[in-house]
């Protein structure tokens, strides 16, 4: 059985552009419970081939749980997960999916070359070991034991392993932690070149800045749900809001809501909370046109901003 090289290297651009591409990832109504804990509460998500997507959210938001389901490491409690139209395990058996984790995942007593050879031997088709070592810049340390490699060298090794099978989907966990500015730039330009050949990249991060800088699209997850999905600019606009709090019995909420930039008004007893992109305008209004006192202006936390904007208050 011979498979044409071009097809084996699935991320190449030989496919007819007229054929509608299978989505790289498709999650439909996915939930995941761990006993009484609802880690993922219903996620619908479709990633197209060639997209660079940031998966953004605080720790415990359900990022890792969702990624584990995409990787077939755990099964959703309900809903379906598909990777390139296949069940995750089947996509992995075909070398279509790889992941690079932050820590672990290496045997300390193997050499760098042995680790890559070991991994390569498990796939039906891979790129040549020497070529992968060369591309990852670890040819010089190929005969070094993993235990003697620096953190950066181990990370290069993890990338070499992940790229062996020429995956169509690459999942990265906090990929540039510990890299300097130059390393980060080189890394992302390589990732972008691969994406242009059709590889889909989904990376988990809890830094909005990194997501904004390098992703085409940001998916924000909180409390096990997607609370925002858009470009970096759209997401940043959501996150830049502030909350103005004042004591104002019988506040005229519709007047407050009419002020430019206001995205939400809440009344809690005698207090009124105004979520806004322009806190100056709200403060000016409250102090000059109403009897408001005890004025407080707080920058919204990223998560809080998303929660208030999407009505996902999970108190």
């Amino acid at each position, binding site marked *: *059985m011979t*498979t044409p090289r071009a*097809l*084996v290297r*699935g*991320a*190449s*651009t030989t*496919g*007819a*552009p007229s054929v*509608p*591409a*299978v989505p790289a990832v498709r999650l439909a109504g996915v939930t995941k419970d761990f006993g009484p804990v609802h880690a993922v509460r219903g996620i619908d998500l479709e990633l197209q*081939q*060639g*997209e*660079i997507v940031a998966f953004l959210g605080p720790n415990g938001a359900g990022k890792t749980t969702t990624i584990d389901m995409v*990787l*077939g*490491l*755990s099964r959703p409690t309900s809903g379906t997960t598909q990777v*390139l139209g*296949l069940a995750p395990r*089947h*996509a*992995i*058996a*075909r*070398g*279509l*999916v*790889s*992941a690079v*984790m932050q820590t*672990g*995942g*290496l*045997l*300390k*007593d*193997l050499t760098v070359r*042995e680790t890559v*050879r*070991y*991994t*390569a*031997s*498990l*796939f*039906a*088709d891979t790129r040549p070991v020497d070529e992968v070592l060369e591309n990852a810049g670890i040819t010089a340390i190929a005969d070094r034991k993993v235990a003697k490699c620096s953190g950066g060298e181990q990370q290069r090794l993890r990338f070499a*392993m992940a790229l062996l099978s020429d995956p*169509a989907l690459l999942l990265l966990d906090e990929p540039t932690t510990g890299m300097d500015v130059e390393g980060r730039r080189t890394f992302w330009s390589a990732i972008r070149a691969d*994406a*242009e*050949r*059709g590889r889909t990249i989904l990376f988990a991060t809890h830094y909005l800045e990194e997501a904004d800088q390098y992703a*085409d*699209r940001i998916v924000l997850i909180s409390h096990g749900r997607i609370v925002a999905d858009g470009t970096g600019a759209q997401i940043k606009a959501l996150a830049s809001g502030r909350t103005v709090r004042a004591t104002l019995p019988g506040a005229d909420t519709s007047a407050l809501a009419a002020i430019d930039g206001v995205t939400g008004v809440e009344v809690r007893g005698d207090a009124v909370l105004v979520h806004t992109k322009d806190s100056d305008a709200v403060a000016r209004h409250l102090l000059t046109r109403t009897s408001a006192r005890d004025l407080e202006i707080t920058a919204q936390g990223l998560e809080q901003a998303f929660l208030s904007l999407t009505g996902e208050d999970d108190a």
Partner: protein
Amino acid sequence: MSTTTFRGSIDPTARRVPPLGGFNPTLLGIELRRMLRNRRTVVFAMLFPAALFLSFGSTSDWDESVGHGNVAAYVMVSMALYGAALTAASAGTQVALERAMGWSRQLRLTPLNAAVYIVVKAIIALVLGALAIAVVNLVGVLQGKPEMPVDVWVECALLTLACTSVFAALGLCAGYLLPGENAMQVLGPGLALLSFLGNVFIPIDEGSWIYTIAQWTPMYGVAEICRYPLTGDLTWIAVVNAALWLAVFVGGAAWAMARDTARV
């Protein structure tokens, strides 16, 4: 989307799945080399059983006759079994370390079938067990005290290797159930105790209450089977015992593996 990226159309069906669940000679070769490179494991596997044989095998009654041979031969076969069981079990517990290092998780992002991984680990454990058996037998030949016909000698050694699989499975099972390095700390003393109970170190008086219990412990059956070519004496209890414990440990390892696969 503000950027214009090319959307490659990937045909997933053009990709192949490896045969045999990912089992291949490169994998086995690297695992073997890893094991042989671990000097502590190899020295332990070779020296410990040999030293035990030399101390236990030099009893004053070593030349008395047992079945087709002598007491020294009987002790040698027993010590080879104990040594092989211990080294195979310790090799099996390697899965605990590999789980702790995240290597098992890494492997699950490859086409490698979890059962194939277990089979490879079991093969490695048996190779190490075979090394222990070979060394004890070699020391026996050099020492010159054990006496039995060559065919009996070979049969005993081969049966011992077959019986070692029970303990390779036990090691794998423990490796999945116990965290990291604890696995061997439990198995080491545990196997020594089982060997005493299983009539491996010191003969227990037949008919005593302890013998009645001992007959149902994991070392008893396999020890009787390994020495059968020499003693010519094998009860059905011993055979049932060995079959039962093999089933328990293999089943346990399979269950522990499935449980681990579901959880991670």
